[in-house]
């Protein structure tokens, strides 16, 4: 990337304690200077931000990506500089060859950076360990079993011990599949009224409690992906207070919607983990505002046929990448999420979880996004770049329009 000077940008980076109208100079992909506006000599092209918000590029800890070129392009337009993709793609990412194949597609696409998460178990079948060390060597920043069940607590313990041995970050989900049975949505008044089988809160919390005890025993580094219950936030909070090396995230859907959105049997709102009660949503938001939870997209593009079926028969998942930032900004607009905590939860905390540089720092590769938070964007199926049109905000007008995205020192999107 040639040199670039961003001027008149409303810089906000809580990790660097930056909050002022600034100029940022990028040379050869590296941030070389950050000054109050007008105090530096510009270099290369000038990009006038017209006082739009400049924040660190978003980092998505959990997306499901099969079409690398298209989806990373959606990420670039969405202000996301780095996306972690879950291993339950076709083929499943459980060998170094699968990892390098994704790395090559990502390099060829030259959009936002894509990091493959390797499988914890072979074929994600939950009984035999994948070659975890080889996957790490091949470049997996973390390993995950997507939401596929791990056979039993003993296998889980072995995974954790092996991960601890080789200092591998593991990403876990909390769900007891016996307890969730064939559930399709949150167990509560709406599920009962609609006659849909419910997934009880205890299916998540019982599993989380067991895993927290095993983490304490094995001393592994673990991150919980997509927690959905308010009670889980409290469990994570107290485990962190106890000194466990754990972190957690929540999918944006669980911060925006509740089980009541399933009224009308709209299959768009069929997601895993399920949308839970308003009280859960409030506690999850508090967890984000307190800096305990990161936010992930849990992006799952689906083709039309996969969603055009009665609720239970439709596949679970929402297409999010295009609108992720706008959805979070909508929460800010509604006064439910603090802007600084948006940045923390979607850029700073994820970087810390992954053990990479956080924020906009002099001398480091530029990862940033300029977003106009006053302009509104109307989302329609035609406008989404993602192949998945299963977006929960189709027909909605949300705040936020991305002007520029820089990922790993490369300009990947400019409006």
């Amino acid at each position, binding site marked *: 990337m040639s040199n670039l000077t961003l001027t008149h940008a409303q810089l906000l980076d809580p990790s660097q304690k930056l909050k002022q109208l600034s100029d940022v100079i990028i040379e050869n992909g590296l941030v070389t200077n950050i000054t109050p506006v007008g105090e530096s000599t510009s270099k290369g092209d000038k990009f006038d931000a017209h006082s739009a918000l400049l924040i660190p590029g978003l980092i998505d800890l959990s997306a499901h990506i099969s079409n690398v070129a298209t989806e990373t392009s959606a990420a670039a337009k969405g202000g996301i500089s780095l996306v972690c993709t879950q291993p339950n793609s076709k083929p499943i990412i459980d060998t170094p060859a699968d990892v390098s194949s994704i790395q090559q597609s990502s390099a060829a696409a030259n959009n936002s950076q894509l990091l493959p998460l390797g499988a914890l178990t072979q074929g994600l079948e939950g009984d035999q360990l994948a070659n975890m060390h080889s996957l790490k060597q091949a470049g997996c920043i973390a390993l995950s079993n997507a939401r596929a069940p791990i056979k039993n607590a003993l296998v889980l313990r072995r995974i954790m011990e092996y991960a601890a041995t080789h200092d591998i970050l593991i990403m876990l989900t909390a769900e007891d599949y016996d307890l969730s049975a064939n559930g399709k949505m949150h167990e509560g008044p709406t599920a009962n*009224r609609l006659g849909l089988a419910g997934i009880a809160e205890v299916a998540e919390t019982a599993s989380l409690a067991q895993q927290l005890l095993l983490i304490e025993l094995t001393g592994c580094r673990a991150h919980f992906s997509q927690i959905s219950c308010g009670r889980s936030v409290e469990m994570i909070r107290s485990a962190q207070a106890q000194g466990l090396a754990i972190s957690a995230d929540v999918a944006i859907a669980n911060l925006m919607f509740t089980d009541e959105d399933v009224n*009308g049997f709209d299959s768009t709102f069929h997601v895993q983990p399920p949308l839970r009660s308003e009280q859960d949503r409030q506690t999850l938001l508090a967890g984000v505002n307190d800096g305990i939870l990161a936010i992930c997209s849990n992006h799952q593009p689906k083709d039309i046929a996969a969603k*055009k079926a009665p*609720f239970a028969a439709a596949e679970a998942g929402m297409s999010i990448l295009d609108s992720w930032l706008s959805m979070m900004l909508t929460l800010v607009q509604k006064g439910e999420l603090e802007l600084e905590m948006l940045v923390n939860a979607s850029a700073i905390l994820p970087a810390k979880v992954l053990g990479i540089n956080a924020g906009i720092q002099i001398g480091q590769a530029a990862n940033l996004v300029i977003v106009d938070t006053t302009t509104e964007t109307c989302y329609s199926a035609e406008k989404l770049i993602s192949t998945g049109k299963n977006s929960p905000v189709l027909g909605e007008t949300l705040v936020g329009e991305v002007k520029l995205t820089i990922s790993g020192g490369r300009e990947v999107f400019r409006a």
Partner: protein
Amino acid sequence: MTRHSDPTQVQLTADGRLKHFLTTEGLSKELLTEILDLADSFISTQERAVKKVPLLRGKTVVNLFFENSTRTRSTFELAAKRLSADILNLDIASSATSKGETLMDTLWNLEAMYSDMFVVRHADSGAAHFIAEQVTPGVAIINAGDGRHAHPTQAMLDMLTIRRHKGSIEGKTVVIVGDILHSRVARSQIHALKTLGAKEIRVIGPATLVPKEMADLGANIYYDMEQGLAGADVVIMLRLQKERMSDALLPSEGEYFKLYGLTEEKLKLANKDAIVMHPGPINRGVEIDSAVADGEQSVILNQVSYGIAVRMAVMAMAMSGQASEQATQKNEENLSAEAQATGDDA
């Protein structure tokens, strides 16, 4: 954020007439009463030598059963025939979908046959609602049971049974006993009973079969059958599926019958003139004792014959709702075309 069509409103035209019949939830007391009144009038035609009325003459009704049910299907078939419709029975359970055809493919194929009404039974909750949202305007959908969600024609024939045998639903204490969790019948009954002014609705069964959220629908939960039966005017027994034992929801049929089976002894706890109902088919000795099922207070067989009249009523009303909506739309199109023409002239 995105609020999609309210399931209870999809079934109504803009002026509040029935155009599909998907659920009893959200329908007004007037509309439910209209169904009962019309069904009542059909009962008298059923007693005549010539039972047919011409309300659906020239219309094609398709029985679209993704789940097997000989009985419900036959009553719909008979109802359609008595309304003078042509009827096509499709046993999808054993054909199309098992060959991998999606529900949408099946629907498009059937629409190509220019049907006017689909009577749908499907194992997924919300299936009838989904189909109603997908079909071409003008085609009526009648829900003949979707998953655990709703079975509105069964509920309405039960309301008719109560009204005919007890005079009215208002002020009555109605108990529903058994597998409430899996029952679309119970859910539809509760909505209808509430709207029609029942004094109290009680659901009785063990916690494994009675979700506590039933209270949100307006039912009082009883785990003890003796207590639940006290003062009841209507006792509705639900069928117990054999799978409930293997799903670990119940220990055994024997223990279930001991606790929740309706015997003559237990029935004495209800009001003297209480009636006993069952959506059928009954499991004698599992949820109900033969002596009660065949006893004086049982109206189980009456329910079956009222079923035809109720189905005739909702089919006739939905078809007429569709016709009026189509006519309104055509009018509006004509008006806007006229307005356009006038506008062009000016």
